């Protein structure tokens, strides 16, 4: 297990599922993490339990972005790794594209695409000036495969993958790496919300996905400036 001593991480959506598991792993490996969540009460409780920094904010809300970025630097000094993990399905039960409201896809794009765009834009300057940094965008197999009823979420994640790739092209000579990570189907509240009644025994535990994610990011496999990786 690689040591993360001295590294500074900003993780969005870190109070449940993969975000929480990644935050735990970072701390276990010696890194420092600031967790972003709009849910203040669980955030403060979890941050205290983990020894993480807490930032209350909604990445889907434009007005919160510079407040999140500023507090991240105040708490951490700098951000070495940004994990854009916050996601929304829009509405559940999931609906066909034909029955998806425009307002739903707007909301999904705000959280899953524009949120990571804005937050990355606020965090990247420090990385470019230091010539060092990594942005990890959490993706899904639905970003490359078309599944019925997953329209809004799929479209947002496909765009997020491509955004990572474009950003990498533009910044590859400036020391910043971008990864789109598909963690696989996990045993999370979001998965249950999307596909109620799934056999949990067949689903990957978020802790396992978090270990795989960090192992990949820190391994020699990740020497490319951009990669879309399915765990």
């Amino acid at each position: 297990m690689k040591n993360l001593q001295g590294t500074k991480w900003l993780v969005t959506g870190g109070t449940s599922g993969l975000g929480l598991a990644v935050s735990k792993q970072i701390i276990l490996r010696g890194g420092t993490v600031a967790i972003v969540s709009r849910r203040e009460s669980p955030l403060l409780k979890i941050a205290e339990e983990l020894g993480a920094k807490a930032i209350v904010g909604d990445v889907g809300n434009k007005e919160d972005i510079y407040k999140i970025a500023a507090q991240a630097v105040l708490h951490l000094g700098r951000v070495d790794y940004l994990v854009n993990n916050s996601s929304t399905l829009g509405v559940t039960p999931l609906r066909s594209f034909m029955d998806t409201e425009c307002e739903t896809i707007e909301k999904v794009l705000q959280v899953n695409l524009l949120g990571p765009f804005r937050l990355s834009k606020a965090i990247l300057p420090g990385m470019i000036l230091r010539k060092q940094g990594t942005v990890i965008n959490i993706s899904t197999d639905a970003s490359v495969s078309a599944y019925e009823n997953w329209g809004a979420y799929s479209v947002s994640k496909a765009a997020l993958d491509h955004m990572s790739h474009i950003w990498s092209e533009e910044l590859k000579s400036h020391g910043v790496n971008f990864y789109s990570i598909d963690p696989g189907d996990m045993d999370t509240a979001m998965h249950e919300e999307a596909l109620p009644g799934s056999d949990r025994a067949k689903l990957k535990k978020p802790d396992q996905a978090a270990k795989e994610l960090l192992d990949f990011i820190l391994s020699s496999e990740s020497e490319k400036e951009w990669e879309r990786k399915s765990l």
Partner: protein
Amino acid sequence: MGKEELMKFATSSSRRLEHSRLLVISNDGEISHSTAGNLPDFLNQGDVVVVNDAATMPSSLSGILKPSGEHIEIRLGQALEFPKWKVILFGKGDWRTPTENRTPPPVVTTGSVLEFPGQLTARVLDICNGVSERLIEVEFLESETMFWRKFYAAAKPIQYSYLKTDLELWDQQTVFSGPPIAIEPPSASFPLTWDIMFRMQKKGVEILSLSHGTGLSNTGVNAIDKILPFPEPYFISLDVQERILQAKSQGRRIIAIGTGVVRALESWAGRKTNGDIKEVATLKLTPEFKRKIVTGIFSGLHEPGASHIDLLTSFVSPGILARAYAEAEGRDYLWHEYGDVCLIL
């Protein structure tokens, strides 16, 4: 017609970025006109450009004086040892009224309590009567972590009465924004884009950064304005110090993006250190000041009489500067934070 009546002021925070006009002044008196997007054309391989990576805080808090409930606004002036701040106190009213015309604040005394939204509370520790009863020292009654959370929930950006619309927090950030230590924006960087920066790099210009907490430029209170700028925090990493000293030893030009960068670099002045510098700049730059580090400056356009002008006349004679400004006025350059820029080399 007075000088200021000839000037056109930027009234919108919309940035014209690379299209902003650039007044270029060489220290032998040659004046030319270009745009910010052409900045790389004026630089050479080996030049060093130093940017300020400070993010700007929302530095205005509106609340009430307890127990009277009278409306007050405070603007951050200077960070003292946490949780203490020197702040400027305003009475009822908002930014649409120029600060000099604002209602006087209610009387506060040592021990007065100020309450802001989200249960953010401060106690008055001192009233700087020697300067103005509106310059006060307060302490916030929160742990540091809790303070920043509540502060970012309650505070708003400082507004400028000459702008037509409210400034949002993102309007006050530059493309370099990182550590939130600036009280007002390091606005010289407003016209810059990463495309401009990357074109400079491709040309062999070295880009370095430091952090300088730009302070209040004006309070509307003469007695306080006379003592501005307040001491401002700055940070220069050891690596940047070494790179600048190396460039100086090779006779390369050091160009500061903004007056804050000049203040930070000349406060450090090339002293040998054993590590990163995290200090407070108290240096006041005057026309007579002999610079040790900075050879050129890229800066906004500010009104005659502002302390900013004193700083620029340490780069070029007052006569040349006056001639250049007169040309700029004749060509309808825009003044103030969201206006046009000048380059003195």
